[in-house]
């Protein structure tokens, strides 16, 4: 027993010694808590790849303010307890300058307090509105707000004279948030929700759910999910002969979902950041250059199409960069205040305009209404 104890102490001491912390900081440390594996990996993995890509590129250009950037990526696999542990590690031990992430809203809410206590900037890649409402000093988020996406959809519905809709959402944070917002915003926009169904994100067949929707005689369907199951909804809906327009959330922004849905995806309408149609934007559009560059870099390096998900991490990094430039310092407080003053930052999700009361910086203009034509994303013609 004594030997085992001794061995145990030595092992732990050894591990701690290897970890012996803060080298007097030349490099700027940026932490990232992302769900690279696990149930949210389709979000977190592109985010991690994007970050590695942009940090490398920035370091080649000389880093930030002459200092190289050290990126520490932690894989939280969508576990809030891991996110908590990593947040404490990154803030207290690695003394990072800022944290990018986490990927999911649940994790972000858990470490909001930690970021505030540790006075460290947190740029979340999660979508829930509660992250920035009520506003916490150090916490920002880059994805667009659900309610803006929904309002954009409602705008389109008004044009198409749709008033009765059916809502399908997945049983995740994103799905629930969307469902709630839709329920809140529909009446004041002249829309009635005739049927409201929640489906499991791991479902393999949703015919029964869409049949229920069909029976309610709706004029359009809103399918709010960020998981692959959203493609199944589209397929099943078309298979049972449901011909009404299908509106997706901005969580549809990954070409793989279109591929999975095959022909059924033709004509689907959804709001999204302009990244997906970067090539067809007019040359004078402020976002065009950034988007085309990101798309090109990502696709040539990782041999897969860029999705809006990875874009959230890109935006977080750009915002950090611009804030440091503006504050002309790498003092956390100064940079935090600078973020709140940033205006007109061109990102993949839109053009960001922050303020002390708005820690997201995007509004309904971040969105473009897109559709799917011949298996590719395209702008919805007037």
């Amino acid at each position, binding site marked *: 027993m004594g030997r085992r104890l001794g061995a145990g102490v030595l092992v*732990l001491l050894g591990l701690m010694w290897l970890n*012996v912390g803060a080298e007097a900081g030349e490099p700027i440390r940026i932490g990232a808590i992302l769900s690279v594996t696990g149930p949210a990996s389709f979000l977190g993995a592109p985010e991690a790849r994007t970050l590695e890509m942009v940090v490398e590129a920035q370091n080649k250009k000389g880093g930030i303010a002459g200092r190289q950037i050290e990126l520490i990526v932690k894989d939280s696999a969508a576990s*809030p*307890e*891991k996110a908590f542990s990593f947040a404490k*590690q990154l803030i*207290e031990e690695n003394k990072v300058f800022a944290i990018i992430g986490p990927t999911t809203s649940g994790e972000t809410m858990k470490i909001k307090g930690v970021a505030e206590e540790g006075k460290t900037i947190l740029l979340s890649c999660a979508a829930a509105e509660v992250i920035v409402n009520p506003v916490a000093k150090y916490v920002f988020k880059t994805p667009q707000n659900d309610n803006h996406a929904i309002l954009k959809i409602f705008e389109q519905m008004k044009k198409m004279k749709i008033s009765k809709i059916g809502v399908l959402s997945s049983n995740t944070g994103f799905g629930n948030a969307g469902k709630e917002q839709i329920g809140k915003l529909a009446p004041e926009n002249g829309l009635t929700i005739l049927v409201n169904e929640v489906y499991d994100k791991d479902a393999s067949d949703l015919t029964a759910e869409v049949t229920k929707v069909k029976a309610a005689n709706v004029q359009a369907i809103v399918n709010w999910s960020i998981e692959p199951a959203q493609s199944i909804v589209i397929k099943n809906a078309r298979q049972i002969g449901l011909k009404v327009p299908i509106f997706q959330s901005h969580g549809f922004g990954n070409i793989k979902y279109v591929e999975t849905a095959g022909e059924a995806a033709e004509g689907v309408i959804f709001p999204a950041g302009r990244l997906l149609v970067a090539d067809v934007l007019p040359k004078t559009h402020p976002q065009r250059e950034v988007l085309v560059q990101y798309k090109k870099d990502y696709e040539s390096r990782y041999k897969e199409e860029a999705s809006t998900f990875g874009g959230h991490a890109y935006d977080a990094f750009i915002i950090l960069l611009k804030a440091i430039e503006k504050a002309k310092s790498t003092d956390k407080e100064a940079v935090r205040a600078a973020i709140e003053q940033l205006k007109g930052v061109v990102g993949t999700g839109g053009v960001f305009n922050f303020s002390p009361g708005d820690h997201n910086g995007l509004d309904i203009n971040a969105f473009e209404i897109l559709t799917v034509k011949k298996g590719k994303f395209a702008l919805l013609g007037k």
Partner: protein
Amino acid sequence: MRGRYLQLLGFTGLIVAIQLATQLTGNPYHLTQLTMSAYYSLLVIGLCLLIGYAGQISIGHAGFFAIGGYLSALLTTHDLSAYKGTALMWLAKAGVLSSRTGLYGGDLLTVHPWAACFVAVFATVGIAYAVGGPVLRLKGHYLAMATLGFGSIVYRIVLGSALVGAADGISEVPPFSLFPGLEVSGRAPLRVQNYYLAWGLVIAGMALLLNLVHSRAGRALSAIHGAEDAADATGIPTARYKLYTFVLSAAYAGLAGVLLTHFNGGIGPSEASIMKSIRYVAIVAIGGMANLWGALLMSLLLNYLSLRGYFGTYDDAVFGGILILIMLFAPEGLLRRHLPGELRRLFSRGDAEEAP
């Protein structure tokens, strides 16, 4: 009998040594992960008792952890201000409620963490009692699948219910103020006290289990593990003992859930997932099925490493690998004296099987 107390003393020494080491090397940050590791270890030793000593496998214990954690989180965050004028206020008179300001200002009226803790652990025990009866009548695969099913249902319920935050879980759980000056919380200045609090609890829990294992009840458990029918035949009330062990291990898990939730300031559905349950089983396996100390030490080490992100994106794979390697080569666990001999015998026996 003395040996047990010596072991406990030795382990306490280890805990203190680790804390001093972190202090001397200027790395008190590790205490956070070590404290979280302690609460998981509380669950693991209870599970070790169930699997190793009573011989009942459970691949759903994360469910009990989640029940404890979620109930205490729900009670301490759910705002009861709306009921201020009603009959529910007898609770306030009974001293069970507490007023505090929420994270963003605004008054909150919630259940006091002590009351919430009692309710949570009580509920966990109650559910274990109710579920244990039918479940423990099963054996082998059926028992494994039943426990898996239980864990799955708990996961589905917390994932699907808006009351407990659905996929986002519950956050902004207040610290648990045990006595004035001592509270369970993850805040940095309180690191050292929380570390000793957590490990003190684990040591107390270990002491209880060690006493149990070396008592008559413990011997009865070993008999049940070894040969249940024979134990039955000698008059040991096997069903009752199995149930009590199950409930005790669930109580450990529930308590761990409550305290870790207060420490982390929140809980999410991932704490109830099957992967978590499997991890706990993997840790018990590598520590040695019927080896409380082995399970405890392995839990300390593995949870600490996992929480610090040592395994990177291979976290799940590591635990899967552990399961396989241990079950293939060292089914009695790693920390066994007879391990080298057993390995030798294992490899030589493999050829003997083919001969008719």
